[in-house]
């Protein structure tokens, strides 16, 4: 049901409407493809139709002679520039570094997945480019090689190789924590009960509403480049394309990510098309633009998930957890996308203790190359996979031992007095109260009334079930010292500049990038609250490397918890400087100046200066302590947190199964989340809705299917099932259980991925529960997506 938000209308905690929605909803956003430039040309990419093949010849003459064709690029043109690197070095159990094949701008020598870009045409018009691209495809000889698709088979395949130099298609074989392996095995050997489940975490295609697009420009007068692109992460893209791939000095390249229509992870990464349009713009001396068609998005955006996992839970007969052990195969696709190696490892293995006081955990992940599109972080990235494995095996254990799923979780939860708590998989949870969110969700869902709802369903011939998931995640992806130890090749701080203009209004340049999240609203709220000025006087500027100091972009639910804190630190510097100016103007000592509600005052007096007066004085420094203080009012702060943040929560799904057709309907979905302090409840709620919607999509609908030759069978919306409004219920969302993050001054944790992390196991647990209550007790598990035919087959199998 729609919620009555509290009456607060401004500042932290107010459910302010998103200021960006006006332009988005009225078609006045400016996305990359909306930008038209004089003299622009069009790039059309030629993509492999086969999953695996050796390029024998690309005969460019006929295409080059076609009307409007300006240039043709092939892998040959880029063979001497750098590859698109992996951002994270993972080491195998035996200490060897992961295998890192070069990821070229355009495939050279071999094509490695359907959709792999191996050539590009630049033409005066899009139609001319497309016609020439077709010609070029016809004039290319590719010797087809056997496709390597199934990841387990790939890892065992000694003869077929995705990369000729990688013998067993294995990127790495990672153990976490390897030194604990023997102890965990010991626990399993003597455990009173062991539950085992084999699970598939289905591959997902991100399907951002706006397809990827890039425009390259080159300015011969200065030698400067400009890349306008659909990025969640413009500074990282600048670093990668400039320093790693093309060898352009970073100061000669500006990257702009204007309005971006969704990313869900897929636009964190640098893609070859970005390097291509820059190189082509330089060669032609004209802007070069490229926008993916929807089919290209299906084939070439980084996909998500794609794990096959065996999880075991060792426990006492009363359900007390003793150990978790997993063996996972993770499909990384044909090349390493930028965060592909960390997603199945440190974003997954470190969460395998859940919110539980389990003493022993061991995680093994074998990451495998296949002839499929690259796989990388997708909303939740690793944590949904961990949560799914844990919450499914816990439910299964309860079923095997005849225990109550609520009580078993409660019994194993860490308790509030145990924080800070070091998990057996290397994280330090700072705070939490998992009992509180569980109690809350039980109340919200009217669990007590479930039996009568179930009976009502049964009267209609339908099976009703309840599914619980108590999840935790690590987000606010940051601490550089920590991620550095774990193999990151970048730091993960963030930055903001607060520029107070002479007239008192404020521009805030933030490193976080908003592509649908509503940062422009929330960051302005937080700043307004701290400065005591109206939100309307604040502009949030993001997505332009020439304007913002630096940034590591938005993903890992880090924007507010990392960049938002950088902003508040910069604001604190503004206030500190303002106090100095005020002290001078009010002829008081700096220590006596207070700042509250937008006023600098001398404590205990009515002498005060408004924020605007101080700003004016900073820029018109007639009465100003120039000997000791610089004029102007602009401050920058970088912030590198001490730890991750740990949102957690309890989700309950109530589902109905139609046993005749196998169709699952979500009747209710309840979320009790602990996000720490909440800056804007409406936006938090929206983030949960979106995340749960994606989780329901994964659980019930979305399947990425390659056939054995590597053709993508689900390459359009005719076969790739996206969740629609009719597939989801009215969500019941609560975030009143708050244990504020202990190490950032806002006390925020991050809410962007929670829904996608916590919901899939709740849905699947509800379906299995419904089936068992309906007497279909032979069903142990159904792989996602839990589609009608799978449910029906399970019932009748």
């Amino acid at each position: 049901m729609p919620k009555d938000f509290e009456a607060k209308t401004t500042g932290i905690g107010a459910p302010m409407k998103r200021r960006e929605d006006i332009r988005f909803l009225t078609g006045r956003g400016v996305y990359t493809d909306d930008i038209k430039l004089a003299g622009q040309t069009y790039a059309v990419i030629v993509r492999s139709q086969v999953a695996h093949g050796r390029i024998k010849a690309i005969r460019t003459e006929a295409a080059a002679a076609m009307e409007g064709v300006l240039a043709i690029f092939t892998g040959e043109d880029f063979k001497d520039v750098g590859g698109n690197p992996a951002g994270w070095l993972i080491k195998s159990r035996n200490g060897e570094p992961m295998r890192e094949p070069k990821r070229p701008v355009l495939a050279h020598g071999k094509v490695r997945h359907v959709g792999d870009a191996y050539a590009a045409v630049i033409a005066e018009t899009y139609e001319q480019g497309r016609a020439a691209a077709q010609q070029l495809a016809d004039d290319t000889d590719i010797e087809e090689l056997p496709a390597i698709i199934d990841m387990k088979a790939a890892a065992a395949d000694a003869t077929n190789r995705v990369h000729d130099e990688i013998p067993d298609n294995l990127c790495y074989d990672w153990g976490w924590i390897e030194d604990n392996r023997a102890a965990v095995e010991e626990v399993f050997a003597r455990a009173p009960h062991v539950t085992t489940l084999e699970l598939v975490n289905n591959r997902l295609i991100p399907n951002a509403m706006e397809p990827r697009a890039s425009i390259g420009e080159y300015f011969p007068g200065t030698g400067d480049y400009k890349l306008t692109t659909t990025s969640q992460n413009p500074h990282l893209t600048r670093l990668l394309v400039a320093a790693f791939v093309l060898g352009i000095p970073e100061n000669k390249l500006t990257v702009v990510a204007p309005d971006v229509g969704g990313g869900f992870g897929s636009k964190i990464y640098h893609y070859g098309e970005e390097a291509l349009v820059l190189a082509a713009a330089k060669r032609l001396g004209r802007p070069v633009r490229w926008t993916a068609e929807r089919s290209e998005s299906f084939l070439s955006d980084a996909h998500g998930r794609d794990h096959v996992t065996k999880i075991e839970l060792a426990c006492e007969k009363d359900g007390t957890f003793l150990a978790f052990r997993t063996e996972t195969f993770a499909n990384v696709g044909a090349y390493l996308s930028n965060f592909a190696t960390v997603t199945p490892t440190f974003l997954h293995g470190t969460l395998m203790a859940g919110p539980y006081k389990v003493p022993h955990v061991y995680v093994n992940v074998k990451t495998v190359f296949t002839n499929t599109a690259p796989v990388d972080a997708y909303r939740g990235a690793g944590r949904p996979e961990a949560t799914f494995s844990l919450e499914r095996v816990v439910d299964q254990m309860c079923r095997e031992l005849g225990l109550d799923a609520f009580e078993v979780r409660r019994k194993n939860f860490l308790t509030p007095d145990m924080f800070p708590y070091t998990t057996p998989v290397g994280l330090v949870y700072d705070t939490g109260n998992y009992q509180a969110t569980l109690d809350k969700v039980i109340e919200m869902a009217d669990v007590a009334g479930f039996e009568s709802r179930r009976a009502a369903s049964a009267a209609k011939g339908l099976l009703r079930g309840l599914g619980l998931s108590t999840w935790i995640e690590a987000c606010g992806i940051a601490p550089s010292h920590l991620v550095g130890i774990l193999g990151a090749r970048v730091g993960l701080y963030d930055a903001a500049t607060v520029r107070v203009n002479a007239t008192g209004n404020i521009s805030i340049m933030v490193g976080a990038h908003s592509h649908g999240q509503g940062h422009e609203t929330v960051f302005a709220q937080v700043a307004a609250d701290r400065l005591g000025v109206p939100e309307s006087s604040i502009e949030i500027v993001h997505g332009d490397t020439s304007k913002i100091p630096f940034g590591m972009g938005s993903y890992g639910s880090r924007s507010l918890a990392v960049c938002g804190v950088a902003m508040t630190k910069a604001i604190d510097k503004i206030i500190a400087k303002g106090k100095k100016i005020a002290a001078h103007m009010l002829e008081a000592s700096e220590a006596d100046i207070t700042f509250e509600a937008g006023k600098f005052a001398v404590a205990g007096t009515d002498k005060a200066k408004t924020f605007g007066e101080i700003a004016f004085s900073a820029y018109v420094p007639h009465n100003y302590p120039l000997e000791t203080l610089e004029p102007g009012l602009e401050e920058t702060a970088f912030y590198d947190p001490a730890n991750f943040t740990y949102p957690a929560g309890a989700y309950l799904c109530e589902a109905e199964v139609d046993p005749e057709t196998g169709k699952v309907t979500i009747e209710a979905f309840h979320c009790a989340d602990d996000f720490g302090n909440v800056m804007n409840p409406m936006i938090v709620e929206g983030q949960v809705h979106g995340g749960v919607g994606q989780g329901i999509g994964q659980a019930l609908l979305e399947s990425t299917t390659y056939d054995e030759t590597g053709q993508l069978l689900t390459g359009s919306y005719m076969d790739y099932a996206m969740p629609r409004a009719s597939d989801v219920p009215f969500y019941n969302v609560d975030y009143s259980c708050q244990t504020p993050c202990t190490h950032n001054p806002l006390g925020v944790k991050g809410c962007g991925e929670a829904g996608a992390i916590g919901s899939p196991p709740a849905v699947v647990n509800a379906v299995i529960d419904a089936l068992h209550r309906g007497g279909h007790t032979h069903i142990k598990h159904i792989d996602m997506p839990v589609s009608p035919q799978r449910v029906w087959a399970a019932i009748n199998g």
Partner: protein
Amino acid sequence: MQNFDFVKPASVAEAVAALGTSGAQALSGGQTLIGSMKQNLAAPAVLVSLTGIAALKGVSVSGGVMSIGAATPHAEVAKASGFPGLSSLAGGIGDPAVRARGTIGGSLANNDPAACYPSAVLACGATVVTNRREIAADDYFQGMFTTALEDGEIITAVRFPIPERAAYAKFEQPASRFSLTGVFVAKYGAKVRVAVTGASNDGVFRWTDGEDALQASYDPAAVKGLKVSPDGLIADLHGTPAYRANLVAVMTARAVAAS
């Protein structure tokens, strides 16, 4: 998409003439054809729009027959009165945008094996009227994407004898939301016809075992337990032949219950 010429005639005769030019193809709501052109699966040189021809549009009921002009969009059929079973079928096609443009003539000419209308046409024994002749439903559908239409022949209208009781029960394919298996049941006195779409490699078909059972007893229970052979049924990502066979009986029972 390739470039093309576009003509919008005002009469059937002009349309037929225009379709005589080389590379010409009829365009109705474009909900199938434009998509195919975007994917370069179709590249007509001339599109002959039928939606400007007044004679091809509208719904009328007289003497127990509903006549629908070939260029009538689904949305209009959905709100017509006189044949609720058909209106509800039309109201369940695609989404509002598709229903606003897509037409019955286009749907029947295309004869997608998962389309909804063919089941109603076949179950009702409707008549497909063209610029040349009248074609009985039993002769019209000739397999997936194949019909009795000849080159240059255009559908002008479809005439449905309105059944005493009828309903369409559609089980949606999860991605496309076309029918994974859809069943139209139509009862005319003692006679019952059951037509199934979405399920068979041969396109829409009559489920005669179901018809016999319902003629004996017009009750969902009459078909519920009936076994349907999976032979010849479609196998794809969304359903095995066995799954579709189950759905034929289940959806027939549901159509009977809803009729």
